């Protein structure tokens, strides 16, 4: 058993080391994905383009505009009238328009409230919420400054724990690391068996004393090492490129990565024994891992606000538990004592997946 397993392990390592394409996929793809996704998924608002229509042209209106532009917005050229404002949105050049009415300065002094119109592009709900939020904040600040002494009854002092700058990359990047690991692990092994089916070598080694256990473990082993190397690579990239702090224990994170990676390697093998071609293997792997881990893992969309059936479905998505782990260890610096349920789930899940993939390995053709 040991001799046979060792023989398969050594053969698989040789395949990987002699195939530059596999190595490229393993090393370059995750980095490329991290760069692409981290920049695309970032939720921070920097220089959102808005236009301001100033119908008052007073010192007060100009002060308000200054206040707006000093924060998150980038001012585009402002139209002089309110006619055809919606045209500005159609091209997608701006995300919001603020209209300062005539007599703005005068009314600030004489009236209890001055209406300032904010138009936002509702087709992008995320940006719309952010824009209104920021304009509100600016308006509030501006009003308070104009009327000293009359502060609001409740003064909120918010302090963001673990991530004082509110850097969404700190939130996104660990999640992406988990997502990329999922993809790479599943893809690697999903091709491993089907490749031997396509080349006919599986037919040859089936007529031998090799058992499904030996074939599966022999396939998982080398890719296990590769996937862990990938995990380290992604973390290193996140630390150097995005200044991700690793506040907790790196060894703990790596140890907890083991069952997570193993679960997806086993899933990949399960896919590999069920399909006939490498193309099918890639498609099923992408479909089977991308969607659940993107949507049901708390990566971007909070599970707590999902309908009940989706919440239940998310309970069996390993990415959800690994996200708790990686965010916990990396950002909050928590230890194993706070991650026991997640760890237990991942261990159980990977064991079950491994058993299923061994049991469903077909020892015959056709």
């Amino acid at each position, binding site marked *: 058993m040991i001799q046979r397993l060792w023989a398969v392990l*050594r*053969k698989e390592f040789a395949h990987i080391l002699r*195939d530059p394409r596999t190595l490229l996929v393993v090393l370059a793809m995750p980095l490329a994905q991290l760069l692409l996704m981290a920049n695309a998924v970032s939720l921070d608002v920097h220089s959102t383009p808005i236009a301001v229509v100033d119908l008052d042209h007073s010192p007060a209106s100009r002060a308000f505009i200054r206040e707006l532009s000093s924060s998150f917005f980038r001012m585009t050229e402002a139209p002089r009238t309110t006619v055809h404002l919606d045209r500005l949105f159609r091209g997608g050049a701006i995300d919001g328009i603020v209209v300062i009415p005539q007599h703005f300065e005068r009314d600030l002094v004489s009236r209890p409230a001055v209406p300032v119109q904010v138009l936002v592009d509702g087709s992008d709900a995320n940006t719309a919420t952010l824009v209104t939020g920021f304009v509100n904040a600016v308006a509030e600040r501006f009003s308070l400054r104009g009327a000293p002494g009359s502060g609001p009854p409740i003064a909120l002092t918010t302090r963001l724990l673990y991530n004082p700058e509110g850097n969404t990359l700190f939130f996104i990047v660990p999640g992406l690391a988990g997502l990329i690991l999922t993809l790479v692990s599943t893809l690697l092994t999903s091709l491993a068996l089907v490749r031997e089916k396509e080349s*006919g070598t599986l*037919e040859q*080694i089936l007529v031998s*004393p090799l058992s499904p256990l030996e074939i599966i473990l022999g396939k998982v082993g080398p890719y296990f090492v590769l996937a862990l190397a990938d995990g380290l690579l992604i973390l290193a990239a996140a630390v150097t490129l995005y200044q991700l702090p690793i506040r907790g224990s790196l060894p703990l994170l790596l140890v907890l990565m083991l069952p997570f990676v193993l679960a997806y390697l086993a899933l990949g093998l399960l896919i590999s024994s069920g399909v006939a071609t490498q193309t099918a293997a890639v498609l099923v792997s992408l479909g089977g891992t991308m969607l659940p881990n993107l949507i049901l893992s708390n990566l971007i969309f909070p599970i707590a606000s999902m309908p009940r059936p989706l919440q239940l479905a998310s309970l069996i998505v390993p990415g959800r538990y690994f996200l708790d782990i990686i965010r916990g260890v990396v950002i909050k610096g928590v230890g194993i004592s706070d991650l026991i349920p997640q760890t237990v789930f991942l261990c159980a899940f990977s064991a079950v997946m491994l058993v299923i993939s061994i049991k469903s390995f077909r020892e015959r053709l056709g």
Partner: protein
Amino acid sequence: MAEEGPAIAVAGLTKSYVRAGGRADEVRALAPFDLTVARGQIVGILGPDGAGKSTLLRILATLLLPDRGGGTICGHDLVTGYRRVRRAIGYMPQRFSLYPDLSVLENMRFFAEIFGLSRTAFRARMEELLAFNMLGPFLDRRAGALSGGMKQKLALSCILIHTPELLILDEPTTGVDPVSRAEFWEILGGLRDRGVPVLVTTPYMDEAQHCDRICLLHEGARLAEDAPERIVASFPYSLAVLRGGDMLARQADFGSLEGVVRAVAFGDRLHLYTRDLPGLTRRLAERGLEVTAGRPTLEDVFVEKMGEAARARA
């Protein structure tokens, strides 16, 4: 282990495939098929592509389950004892099925290890195998870079490493140059002489001479099974041979000629099967055509048996 029994004893093997696209449309790949292979024999399964040769061999190698029928391979049950069968036999699939990115030595070592040879046993076995496969100078070459003939010799060496009790080889000489084919058959003869039974398929009728027994397979059914020379001797007709390309166009005319049972084209020759060779020769000579008497070959037997089988079905 049943050392004394036959290497292969199977009966009633059937296998059908569902044709792609059609649900009720089943293709019978193997009709009820019996086969016995004694130890120390080379048995050849001959038949054209699609005759069911690979299906039969895959069933015997435990890679496919027969729909019905069964038997023993090296004394182990074909269905329930498949693990033991797999340890006992050496099976070579039709396609080259070694790892092209591993070297000759690495491929051989891999098979030695999965069959549980110790290092010393492997070294000793390597020397024996290198003596006949002549791959000594190419040990570090990647298998994918070998010539067709060398690939087949390497594949054979890999399945011989564990000293199997029976060899099952699926078209090992297809696509191999004539010199390598002759070498390959010589190796198989040597193995047979050492008592290893060999079951081999081939689409080449001229390779039958290397076999102790042959079985003609057509559409999953046996047309004949015997020693090759006895099968040829069983041909019931005399053979008249006509040469020349213009003859081929008139194949149908000759087929309906008096005294001709069947006219079959082989390359640029036309074979006329007849019960009355002198009479036919005379009649054709009257028409200015010169025929020579030919010795029937296995191909003639095959064509005749195929015709017989078709008539029996009709």
